[in-house]
């Protein structure tokens, strides 16, 4: 594509952008206030966006709070990510029926290939989608459900101007300004109730969509405001991870007593993995009915915090709490690098906020960094 050219759109333009996407056949999803949180859902109009809302987050705590302006994207991230749409919690893989002659008939589920537009994706979430793309779509065995859901998505990312206290995206290199992979990137400029967006296309399709929206040339002053929004966000992000040699830091501390201290607090409830936008593990369930002539195979989200997850012949090989937390953290930040040449963490902070007891991986990592435990040579995988 040609060099991206940014334009400025106002609130009418934002509405027109959604209309343009609808006219092109997209189901448009965007953040909305539901049940006391901001979460992505089908967007009927831009009026559904969380106008004048923000979120306050800390370990184990999330609250919606009113803003004194008209910002539509003046918050960080909620409990649910785009994973819920792209990699659903429960999907039927196939059904099998035995007819009266005793013949088995298998009906495979052929996923729809919907045209979906995601408006309001955060830069960290864009990075998370890219990580799931790599695992679920670009590997040797692409996942049919994910691929079908993902291949026709149109992504409108909104650069982050309102990070939460649990955010640490700069440490992971995923924000608060979006990297590549979007169709359109917006930066929200808020002046009381007046709101404008600097819009930059990231794909030919994005540029084409933008041409259907009334816009003005972005002024130098607006461009500078946009840069300032990002710079201010960076300044306000307080949590961080030092990722230098992080894999070796974790794998050199597999027997650290720190894991026992974490295990005293960890509920093994699985919330961190389920809220994580990159955790992808699934289980298969076969469900037979009472007749014995019908069975369905379902694919469901799974979590490395469940005992069944590591259940082999003699039983779960990660029975202790510490072994389960260690598995999660060392995979997310360590062995993910071995598998996929990048970290599995995007710094969105969901695992901190949505842990019911507020276990904070940034704090735990700094503890490992500050007081490395006894090292041991690696022999195969940690247990």
């Amino acid at each position, binding site marked *: 594509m040609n060099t991206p050219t940014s334009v400025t759109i106002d609130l009418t333009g934002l509405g027109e952008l959604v209309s343009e996407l609808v006219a092109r056949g997209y189901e448009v999803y965007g953040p909305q206030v539901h049940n006391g949180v901001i979460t992505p859902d089908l967007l009927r109009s831009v009026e559904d966006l969380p106008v004048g809302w923000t979120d306050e987050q800390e370990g184990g705590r*999330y609250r919606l709070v009113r803003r004194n302006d008209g910002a539509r994207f003046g918050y960080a991230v909620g409990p649910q990510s785009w994973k819920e749409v792209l990699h659903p919690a429960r999907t039927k893989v196939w059904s099998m029926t035995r007819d009266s002659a005793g*013949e088995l008939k298998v009906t495979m589920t052929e996923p729809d290939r919907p045209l979906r537009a995601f408006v309001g994706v955060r830069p960290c979430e864009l990075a998370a989608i890219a990580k799931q793309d790599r695992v679920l779509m670009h590997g040797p065995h692409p996942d049919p459900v994910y691929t079908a859901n993902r291949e026709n998505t149109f992504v409108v990312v909104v650069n982050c101007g309102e990070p939460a206290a649990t955010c640490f995206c700069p440490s992971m290199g995923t924000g608060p300004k979006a990297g590549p992979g979007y169709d359109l990137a917006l930066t929200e400029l808020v002046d009381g109730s007046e709101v404008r967006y600097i819009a930059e296309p990231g794909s030919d399709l994005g540029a084409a969509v933008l041409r259907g929206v009334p816009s003005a040339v972005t002024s130098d002053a607006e461009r500078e405001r946009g840069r300032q929004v990002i710079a201010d966000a960076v300044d306000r992000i307080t949590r961080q991870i030092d990722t230098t040699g992080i894999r070796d830091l974790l794998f050199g501390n597999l027997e650290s007593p720190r894991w026992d201290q974490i295990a005293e607090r960890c509920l093994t409830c699985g919330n961190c993995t389920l809220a994580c936008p990159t955790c992808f593990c699934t289980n298969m369930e076969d469900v037979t009915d009472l007749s014995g002539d019908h069975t369905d195979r379902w694919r469901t989200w799974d979590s490395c915090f469940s005992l069944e997850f590591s259940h082999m012949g003699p039983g779960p090989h990660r029975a202790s709490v510490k072994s389960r937390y260690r598995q999660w953290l060392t995979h997310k930040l360590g062995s993910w690098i071995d598998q996929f040449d990048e970290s599995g963490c995007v710094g969105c902070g969901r695992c901190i906020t949505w842990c019911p007891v507020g276990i904070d991986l940034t704090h735990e990592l700094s503890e490992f960094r500050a007081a490395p435990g006894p090292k041991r040579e690696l022999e195969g995988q940690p247990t």
Partner: protein
Amino acid sequence: MTATEVTTEVKPSTKVGNPTLAVWKFASCDGCQLSLLDCEDDLLAVAGRLDIAYFPEASSGMMAGPYDVSLVEGSITTPGDLKRIKEIREQSGLLITIGACATSGGIQALRNGADVSEFIGIVYAHPEFISTLDTSTPIADHVTVDFELRGCPIDRGQLVETIAAHLAGRPPRIPTTSVCVQCKARGTPCIMVSQGTPCLGPVTQGGCNALCPTYNRGCYGCFGPMESPNTAALAQQFTHLGLTDSEIARTFRSYSGWAQAFREEADKHEIPQGTNQ
């Protein structure tokens, strides 16, 4: 969704006489038996695969034992119960307990450790007619139980799954993970994190499809402790949320309060139950 079809040949199954089913009641509210009656279309399917031989709640026609499958509701609270459960065990091939009363003693286990004779004196006009034990205990404390189905009441989907699994000769697919797993799967935001509502979900086995949190109520622990309940960590979080020790004890001492993990946590936060306070 569209579908493609693949056909594979297999031999037809041969069906011999249906196994018999009996449903028994001990100290309970009957809610779990009602869950079976509430299975609607699935109940017809159950009746098609099992001969319902003894189910007084549903039919006055009662066949003599032995029975291939017994579903047992309720807890053991009287000397008569002690005798009857042993007879039922002897007459039953597979014995499956259903519900919080049968699997952990139920809400009536609040009597355990208290002065039961004092209760009787207050409640009954003629206490001398009452013959009861000092405790309410789960069925598995007295006889061998083949499978325990949790809940207050049980989930009818789990009941049908358990019966279907036993008919098919496979293990029942009953998750032992937390209620949180079901909240996240159905998109219910955590009410403890987003509203500060104390919730037993993180230490409770899922099965209800996160019913209470979805309606903005903290989990009451109906399905009992999950596979690895860290009750101490959750209790500490309850303290941060402003609960007193007494409130924490009462939160754990509910429908599954006599289940070991919940009972021990409750005991840590309050003087032994039954003591006046």
